[in-house]
C-alpha cells in the first residue's frame, strides 16, 4: 500500500491529505478530511448516497479513487450553502419534508444541483430520471421531486425578478 500526499479542491478550498492510493474519494472525504456529510449506503455504486459533484458532474464517491480527482473541483453537501444562506434546494427540501431520515439527502441534493445547473427548468419526468440513481427508503420520492421543482421555480423567479419568491405549497400537487 502506498501513500501519497494529495491536494484536493473541496468546496472551494484546497485540502491536503496523506492518503492511501487505493482509498476512495468517499473514504478520503469522510475519514481524512472529516467531511462526514457525504454518506454511504453500499460502497458498491448501488445507492447514490455517496454522490458528490466533480467539476459539476455527479460522481459516486465510493467508486472514485481520490488520486483520480486531484485538481478537480469537488462539491459535497457541506459546500452547497453559503453561510446563513442555504441552497434553494435545501430550503425546498426542508419545507416540503423531502428529507425524512436525511441519509439520502446529501447525495440527492448534489445530484439535483447538477441537474438544475444544467437544466434550470426541468420537467417532473426529467427530475425523476436525473435522480433515478439515488435511492431513498423513506419518502416515496414524491416530496423530493416536488422540492426540486419548487427550487427550480424559485431559482427561475429569482433570476427573472431578482428576488426570491415565497410560498411553501407542494409543487404541482
Amino acid at each position, binding site marked *: 500500500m502506498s501513500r501519497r500526499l494529495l491536494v484536493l479542491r473541496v468546496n472551494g478550498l484546497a485540502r491536503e491529505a496523506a492518503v492511501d492510493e487505493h482509498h476512495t474519494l468517499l473514504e478520503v472525504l469522510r475519514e481524512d478530511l472529516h467531511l*462526514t456529510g457525504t454518506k454511504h449506503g453500499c460502497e*458498491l455504486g*448501488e445507492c447514490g*448516497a455517496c454522490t458528490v459533484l466533480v467539476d459539476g458532474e455527479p460522481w459516486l464517491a465510493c467508486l472514485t479513487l481520490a488520486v483520480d480527482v486531484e485538481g478537480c473541483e469537488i462539491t459535497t453537501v457541506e459546500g452547497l450553502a453559503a453561510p446563513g444562506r442555504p441552497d434553494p434546494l435545501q430550503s425546498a427540501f426542508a*419545507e416540503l419534508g423531502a428529507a425524512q431520515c436525511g441519509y439520502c439527502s446529501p447525495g440527492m441534493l448534489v445530484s439535483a444541483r447538477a441537474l438544475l445547473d444544467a437544466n434550470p427548468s426541468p420537467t417532473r419526468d426529467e427530475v425523476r430520471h436525473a435522480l*433515478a440513481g439515488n435511492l431513498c*427508503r*423513506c*419518502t416515496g420520492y414524491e416530496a423530493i421531486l416536488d422540492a426540486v421543482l419548487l427550487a427550480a421555480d424559485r431559482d427561475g423567479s429569482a433570476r427573472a425578478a431578482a428576488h426570491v419568491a415565497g410560498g411553501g405549497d407542494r409543487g404541482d400537487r
Partner: protein
Amino acid sequence: MTVDPSRTDDLAVVGTRRPKIDAMARLTGEARYADDLSMPGMLVGRQLRSIHAHARIRSVDTSRAEALPGVVAVITGRDVPIAYGVLPVSQDENALAVDRVRYVGEPVAAVAAVDEETAEQALRLVSVDYEPLPAVLSIEDALDPSGVLIHGEGQGANVHKAVALEFGDVDAGFAAADLVREDVFSFAGNTHAPLEQPATLAALGGDGRLTVWSATQAPHYLHRALARVLELPSSRIRVVAPPVGGGFGAKTDILPHEVAAAKLAMVTGRPVKITLTREEVFHSHRGRHPVQMWVRTGFTSDGRITAMHFRSLLDGGAYGSFGVASTYYTGALQTTTYRIPAYRFEGLRVFTTKPPCGPKRGHGTPQPRFAVERHLDRAAEELGLDPVELRLRNAVEPFSRTVNHLRITSCGMRACIEEVVSASGYHGKKGHLPRGRGVGFAVSAYLSGAGLPIYWNDMPQSEVHIKVDRGGGVTVFSGATDIGQGSTSTLATIVAEILGLQPEDLAMVTADTDLTPVDLGSYSSRVTFMAGNAAIDAASKLARLVAEGAAQRLGVPPEELVFRGGQVAVRGDPRKSLSWAQAVRAASARGALMTSGVYWAPEMAGPYRGSGVGISPAYSYSAAVVEVATDPETGEVSVEEVWIAHDIGRAINPVLVQGQVEGSVYMAVGEALMEEQSFRRQGVHRGPSLLDYKLPTTLETPKIHTILIEEPDPEGPFGAKEAGQGPLLPVIPAVAAAVEDALGVVVHEVPITPDRLLRALRAGHRGKAPVIGPASVPSFEFGEPERVQPPVGSPAEVAVP
C-alpha cells in the same frame, strides 16, 4: 390555567405545515449519524460470519489473527456467552455464536484493529472448525419430525411458537352462513434496507462507564440487553441514539454487532466502531416474515361475516427476535376493520436456518391484511357484491369492542373508504379500463402504539421532562429516537403549542439514557401518541408553574391566563400580558422550573394469553385505491397512481404525516412487486446487495394522492393517531387486486414478479386457472384452541341471522 390536551380548535402550531426543526441539520451534512462519529484512538471492529446455514462449531482458532500487527483484540462466543433476546420469552441469541451457527452470516468472532484493512485481514486469519449440519430452509422442512432440531439436539419439529385461540362460537357462525369460503395465500419475506447501514461506536470512560452510540430505534431495550450480556449494572452503561438513517424496524432488535462493539471496547479499553457493510445488513435482517395463510369465512347472502377462521404459518429464521409477538400479530388485527362475531386464530412460527425475521413496518400485519383483503374480494365476487360495499357492510363501529377484546375508539374507516373511492373514480374504472390496466381497493387498520411494553412492568410507557432556564430557554428531554419520522419535531410542536412558543424555540435532547427519561422506543407507531401525551403532561405542568408566577405579577388568577405567541396574557385582555421570558422570571422566583410528564396506556388486555398483542390506545385506519398498467408480454407491472386516505385523528404536522403516508405507499409497492429476501439451496442469500435486492427507484414509484382524514381521537395528543405504518397495509392487496382487474389472473401471493405473472398468464393460455399463489399451506395439528369468552358489547352478542 388549564390545558385541555384534546383541544382541537384554535391551535397555533399544531396542524400547521412546517419544516422539521432538525431538517436543516439533516440537509447540510451537520447531523452526525452513528458512522459519522469518531474518537481519538478509535479502533475498527469487524465480524467474522458463518459460511454455513447450520453447523456445530468444533473450535475457533484466533491465534494467527491475534498475532497480526495492528490487531488489538479478537473475541469469540466464549467472551460473550450470555444469551439475550429482545423479548423475555426468547433469550436465545448470542452476539457471537458459541457452539453452533444457525444461518449463513451469523457472527462467529469479532476483531478490533487499527484500521479496516487490518481488521479484514485478521478475519481471514481466524479459523473456524465447523461440523456442518443439515440446513432447514422451509416451513415444511422445519416441521418434518425426522428433521434436525435447530435449537436443541436430535430430531423433531422446529416449532418456536404455536397458538390457537377461539373467540365466540365459530362452528355456529359457519353453520349460520349462506356462503363459506376458503382461500390460501403466501407472502414472501422481505427486508427493511434502511439506507443507513447500522453502526455502533462504544467507548469505556476513565470512570469505567461504558458509552454506546448506536443506530438504534430502541435505546432502552439495547440498554437492558447490554447490562445483561456484559454483566454490568445498567447505571454503568449509557446508550445514545444519534440521528438514525431510517429504521422501519431494522434497528429495533438488539443486533449482534452492538454487543460485539461494546465488548471489544471493554476488552481493549479503546473506542471501537463497527459499521455493517450492506451485505451484512441483509444478514442482520429482522425483516418481514414469510407467511403462508389459510382463511375460511362464513357470510350471509347479503355479505355479512358470520365467522372467520384464520391460520398463519411463519418462517421465523434462526432466532426468536420479536417472533412471538409477530405470530400473535398475524392474527390480532383482522377484527379491527370488520365486525367478526366469531373468530378462531391459529398461528405457528417455526425456526429455520436463515437470518432471523422480526418486525418490519406493519409488524406481522401486512401478511394477514393481504390475505383477508384478497379473500374478501373473492367473497365479493361469489356473492355478487361490489368489493367496496362488502367492506362497508362489515365495517367496524367506532367506540366498540371486538370479539378478541380489542377496544376500538375513534374510527375513520368509512370516511377513508368514501374519500379514496370517489377521488380515484374507482367505480368508473373497475372492470372498465382497457386490458392491461386495472384498479384495486383495500382497507386496513394499525396500532397507535403497542398497549404493553415488551417486558412486563407497571412503569409509564413514556416520560418527558422539561426544564426552563431563567432566561426563558426551554429544553425538552425525551427518550424517543428520531429515525427520520420526525418524532423530535413532533414533540417540540406539541410542547410549543401548550407553552405558546414556536417549535424552533425549543432545545430538544433525545434518546440518551444518561440524560433522557425512558421512552420505550420508536416502534409500533407509538411515539406521537405515547411520548406526545407525556409531553402534553409535562408541558401542562410547566405551564401551570409559569402561570402561577405570571398571575401573581399580573394580579389575576392563573386560570385566566393563556399562552400564545410568546406571551402569557389575560384571556380576553391581551394588553395585560407578560412576555414568555418575563413570565419565566416571575415563576423562577418561586422555585425551580422543571417538570416531568408521563403516559400510561389504559388497561386493555383481555382475559387470555397473548391478549397483550394487538391492544392499542387507538387504531388508525387507511383505505387505498391503486391503478396499475401491466405488460402481458413481459409480465411487468407498473403502479401508476395510488389514492390513499389515512385516518390520522389529527395531523400534528401535515408535512410529516404526508411523508409517512407516502413512504409507506412506496415501501408497499416494493413489497407488492419486487422485494423478496430469498435464499439458495444451502441457505445462501440470493443477492445481498441493493442491485440484486430490487427496490423501487424514482422510476418505479407511483404518483401518490394523499388524503388525510382528521377525526380527532379522544385520547390522542390533540387528537392524533399514528401514520408511520398503517398506510402501508392496504396498498399491497390493492396492487394485487389491480393486477387481477388488469389481466384476469388471480393474485394470492406477493411479490408479483414478472416471472410469476408470466407463468400465471401462460397457464391461462393453456386453459388452466391463471393463479399466482399457493395451492395449499403446510399442515400442522394445532389441537384444541383456548376458548375465550367475547367481551360484553362485542359483535358476538349480535345474533347471527
